[in-house]
């Protein structure tokens, strides 16, 4: 990534409405540095693709300004923005060969035949399809077609590459393989990528930063580890990774921590993140892997839990328990052999630390 302060892409108070009434994107602000891999993550209809299309120029912003390399581009047509795009359905020209598909963006840029040929060959080598230049898209697998689409988006050295759920049509194994390939291409070429997906694992694998969208608003914009470890609200905590949720009212606040009553005179000591006053309702977020069975004295929160279901997953046993009246409380018990005696219906002590439990909105 570039160290300069001037962002390559900047959204300033951008809003979008299709009907003039409902905002599908609400006051979107984003700075994206050159060389960054930024993912917009969110459920369907959250506004992430709309933001991508506004940057591409296929959707006009209803309000706000979009900048590319410091220049406002709201009134710049798509073909003058110098942006490469990759789509979920590959969007290749079906009757052209792979090499012709790659050469086309260069031909419309009036590149010479020899330069075009060089670039096409390099792009094909980059996506490991050097031998497939003469084939038509229909003669390739889904993964190979998507690689061609990636190569086509990169072949003309765009300022930014936009990827709209590019791996959505691939099966799980291929998707995971392609995630690494795209990540490596990004690292090797130092290109700037704005990526849209609803798949959190995809976002966590590839991104420098992730913008989590919901209802047209960015809920949190942070690196993957921060999003997972320090979600700022209940939506992010739920959307990124697995999460145990307990609900209650704040009964006391002490600096960075607070106590939340979760019912039946049970009080949970939690990190104060998104609560302000005593009496506020709060959602407590605890990651399953941060909960331990039979906790030691260093654990601030210790409760009784009843084992409801045990699912063997190899490296750990996914244990569903009833804890603080929540019957979907998940604990990931490491498969160390020591807890092999755990049976459904058993009652055990469970515990977690205050700093692993976040009191959110």
């Amino acid at each position, binding site marked *: 990534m570039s160290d300069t302060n001037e962002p390559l892409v900047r959204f300033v108070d951008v809003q979008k409405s299709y009907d003039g009434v409902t905002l599908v994107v609400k006051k979107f602000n984003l700075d994206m540095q050159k060389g960054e891999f930024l993912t917009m993550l969110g459920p369907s209809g959250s506004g992430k693709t709309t933001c991508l299309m506004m940057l591409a120029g*296929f959707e006009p912003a209803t309000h706000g300004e979009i900048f590319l390399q410091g220049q406002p581009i709201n009134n710049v047509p798509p073909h003058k923005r110098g942006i490469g795009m990759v*789509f979920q359905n590959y*969007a290749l020209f079906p*009757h052209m060969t792979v090499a012709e598909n790659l050469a086309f963006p260069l031909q*419309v840029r009036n590149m010479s035949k020899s330069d075009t040929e060089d670039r096409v060959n390099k792009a094909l080598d980059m996506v490991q399809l050097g031998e497939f230049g003469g084939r038509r898209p229909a003669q390739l697998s889904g993964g190979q077609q998507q690689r061609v689409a990636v190569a*086509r988006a990169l072949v003309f050295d765009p300022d930014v590459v936009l990827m709209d759920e590019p791996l959505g049509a691939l099966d799980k194994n291929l998707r995971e393989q392609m995630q690494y390939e795209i990540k490596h291409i990004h690292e090797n070429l130092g290109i700037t990528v704005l990526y849209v997906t609803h798949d959190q694992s995809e976002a966590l694998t590839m991104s420098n930063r992730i913008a989590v969208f919901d209802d047209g608003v960015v809920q949190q914009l942070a690196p993957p580890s921060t999003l997972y470890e320090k979600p700022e609200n209940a939506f992010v905590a739920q959307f990124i990774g697995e999460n145990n949720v307990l609900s209650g009212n704040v009964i006391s606040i002490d600096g960075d921590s607070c106590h939340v009553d979760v019912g039946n005179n049970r009080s949970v000591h939690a990190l104060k993140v998104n609560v302000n006053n005593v009496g506020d309702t709060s959602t407590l977020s605890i990651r399953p892997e941060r909960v331990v069975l039979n906790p030691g004295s260093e654990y601030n929160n210790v409760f009784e839990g009843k084992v409801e279901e045990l699912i063997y997953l190899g490296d750990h046993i996914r244990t569903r328990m009833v804890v603080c009246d929540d019957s979907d409380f998940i604990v990931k018990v490491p498969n160390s052999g020591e807890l092999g005696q755990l049976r459904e219906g058993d009652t055990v002590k469970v515990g977690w630390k205050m700093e692993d439990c976040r009191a959110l909105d």
Partner: protein
Amino acid sequence: MKALIVMYKEIVDNLRDRQTFFYALLFGPVLLPLIIGGSLVASFKQFAIDFDEVTELAIVNETAAPNLVAFLYSNNVDVITAPDEVEAAVRAGDIMIALEIPDEFGEQLRKANPAPLTLYVNDADKDSTRAARKISALVSGYKNTINSLRMQHRGIDPQVFNSIELTEFDVSEDGSSGQLLASILPFLFIMSMIMGGFYLAIDTTAGERERMSLEPLLALPLDRADVVYGKFGATLCFVLMSSCLTVLSIYALFQFFPTELISGGLRFDGSTLVKAFLLVSPLTVFLSAALITVSAYTRSTKEAQTYLGLMMIVPMAPFFLLQFFSLGASTWSMALPMLSQYQLLEKVVLQDDINQWHALLSVGGTLLAGLLLLRLATKLYRRDRILM
């Protein structure tokens, strides 16, 4: 220049598409004229009576009317002896047609009474009905001869009963079958032009939107007008190729067309077809623009096929208009695309003189309409909802 790159891409892309290739360069210009021309020949042959052709006729009791049998024989009727179950044999198709002569045939003739004859024909069999028409015509001729002889025998001039003789003189010199043939030529041209650009227009606009390859195209440094002109150019090439092939196939078709079915005034020779092609060629611009515009308006291939399918009916409108109404060439009709070409091409085929002002008006009106449609297509492509 960039429009040419898009055009080249679309042409190459679609030449490799078998469906487009089949409809543009095979179905429209080759198969369609063959189908329509073949149907016409079959239809004309069905209704025409060929007195030179030898027709086989089974006769029951042929000895009862030797003169009639001799008359039929002298008019290329090959008489055979009928089987016992003559009605069943005609119905089964064992014999095409049969004539039953009763024993009293000669007696009735001698008494100057109407002499009965029964003709067995199978109306469900086209060969049988065609043969029946010929036999009926011959028997009718034989009857007229006898009638004349009877009157002369009684000292009466047969002309006494011919009080009025009306002669109809067809000044068109081509007759109604000629008129139909003359209308067929523009119909074939226009249909094959539409077929030529039909799938390409759908594929390059609605099809591209549907498979979402329009986004990467519009993201390239190409003005929307370049994109539209490129797609229009590709469609125009296919439409032109299709119409050139139509000229060749119509030329070839009329080489094999029975000359007796083409009235004297009609011409389908090389120079006539070239002249017709030149007059109809502005329609390539109009129809290509229309195909692109309609496709650009639609959101999916299916929708485009529905709309363009309806567009196929449009060329039929002038065809039926001219078949059922007497529309003379006028300033207003010459300004209308398709109608003007129908009227001009009819004149070309019928060897009538063409008013140069009319030809100019037809070319100008058609090109202007095409350019307006092209402008509309460009406007449609500039909309934000082109990708929605």
